[in-house]
């Protein structure tokens, strides 16, 4: 038995670790656990991107990896934590879909996205790493969408959106080795400002509604 771990396997592993933390988010009962898992997921993502630099030999990715770590691993969870401390009196996440089924749906999502990418994308040079990491990115996207739709608390919906963005960046890293620098910085900036604005909006929701349960936001119909 040999213990050689090739670089591509390590990249796949870190990407899968990121996906695992995303799935763990759907099973979290409390808000601060969800934020901590999101931090872990972003850190795993930035390590994946950092390792891909050595795999693809594209040094622009280092900047993206560092940006991911700073903005998504440190800054955004810090802001989220601040918001949670100030606003939330009830830490429990209220789900529309209960937690066991959520994880089961996530498993189906993973299988589904591996199936979609298996026929379309073939890259003959790297024995399937690109396809696997792309499938993992696609799964994280769908898990993020699922989080947004299947939870009632506004804060979890923001985390779902941030997970979605993480998945997109992972997909970008695997297929196109990172977007052009201007676009990448624009994406980071937009996501960061978006998260902050959503956070401020949560303050407004709390002021008008006394809770951040979005199922109470159902006045506008027809």
């Amino acid at each position, binding site marked *: *038995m*040999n*213990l*050689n*771990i090739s670089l591509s*396997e*390590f990249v*796949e*592993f870190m990407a*899968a670790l990121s*996906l*695992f933390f995303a*799935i*763990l988010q759907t*099973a979290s*009962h409390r808000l601060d656990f969800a934020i901590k898992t999101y931090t872990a997921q972003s850190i795993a993502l930035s390590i994946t991107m950092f390792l891909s630099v050595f795999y693809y030999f594209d040094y622009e990715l280092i900047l993206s990896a560092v940006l991911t770590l700073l903005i998504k691993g440190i800054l955004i969870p810090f802001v989220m934590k601040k918001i949670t401390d100030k606003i939330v009196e009830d830490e429990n996440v209220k789900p529309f879909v209960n*937690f*066991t089924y959520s*994880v*089961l749906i*996530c*498993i189906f999502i*993973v*299988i589904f996205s*591996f199936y979609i990418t*298996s026929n379309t994308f073939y890259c003959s040079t790297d024995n*399937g790493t690109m*396809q*696997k990491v792309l*499938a993992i990115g696609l799964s994280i996207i769908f898990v993020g969408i699922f989080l947004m739709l299947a939870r009632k608390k506004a804060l979890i919906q923001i985390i779902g959106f941030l997970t979605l963005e993480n998945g997109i960046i992972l997909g970008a890293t695997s297929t196109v080795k990172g977007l052009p620098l201007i676009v990448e910085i624009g994406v980071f900036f937009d996501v960061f400002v978006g998260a902050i604005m959503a956070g401020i909006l949560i303050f407004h929701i709390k002021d008008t509604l006394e809770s951040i349960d979005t199922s109470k936001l159902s006045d506008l119909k027809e």
Partner: protein
Amino acid sequence: MGNIVIGILQIVIFIALAPAIKGFIHKIKLNLRGQKGPSILQPYKDLIKLFRKEPVISKDASFISKIAPIVVLLATIISASFIPIFSPNTLLSFTGDVIAFMYVLGLSTFFIALYGLDQGSSFGGLGSAREMTIASLAEPTLMMIMFTFSLEYGTSNISEIFVKAHSHSFNVPIAYVFSLLALFFVSMAENARIPFDNPETHLELTMVHEAMILEASGKYLAIFELSSYMKLLLFISIASNIFLPFLYSSNMLLNILFYIIKVIIFSIPIALLELSVAKFRFFRIPDLLMISFALATLGFVLYYV
């Protein structure tokens, strides 16, 4: 002929070792808690004591109460004959199928649950219901893990998997970490360990496994206890022999020694986990099992796409 002898030898060593491992885990736990704890050989003494006692059966019990302990013991022994302990020549290596292994294991779970229901006491039914919930979520996970191995090595025969794993031309993919974690959780679930069930508890409302054998006494209790020790050692053997195949030589006595060392190494995380977490409330157990299923699926798709 020599193979059958080796096979029987493996079973005998397995049954002989099982209570010692259980005692070992118990001793580590208590030592780390600061207590002295009973000696490692205490489970043997408990078994001998129980075998000498006369069983008391409730008058509502049917024939199930008499045959269930035997079936459970036999099922566990048969499952154990699938697993190579220190040599690939097990008693059932000619068929050694992964799926058959899982089904025989499931048979023992099923009969314990029947026994719990058969006694007519409400605690028995409670334990059986909980055990079935846990088993229905843990078995698919175990199956997924086993399939990952089968697909990897291209065979569903456990002995062949063992042989191939120990040949030197094999790289351990790092995705194994996921499957290993999933196997760890499944082992804790199937063996009624914390965080799924507290093996030391005396509170009937929190029991899962103990509740089913609450009414057992005498030699039946001894058989049930022995089966649960063997099941624990079974899962540890799966982890140590199939999962991380190292420390293997061609000398049989050395192999027995290596096996004991590997089992001891793998028992330590079990004891550590038992110490660090409290038992989960029952409604959170399906979540945890689903997460381990997700881990197993991740390990599976990472390897085999």
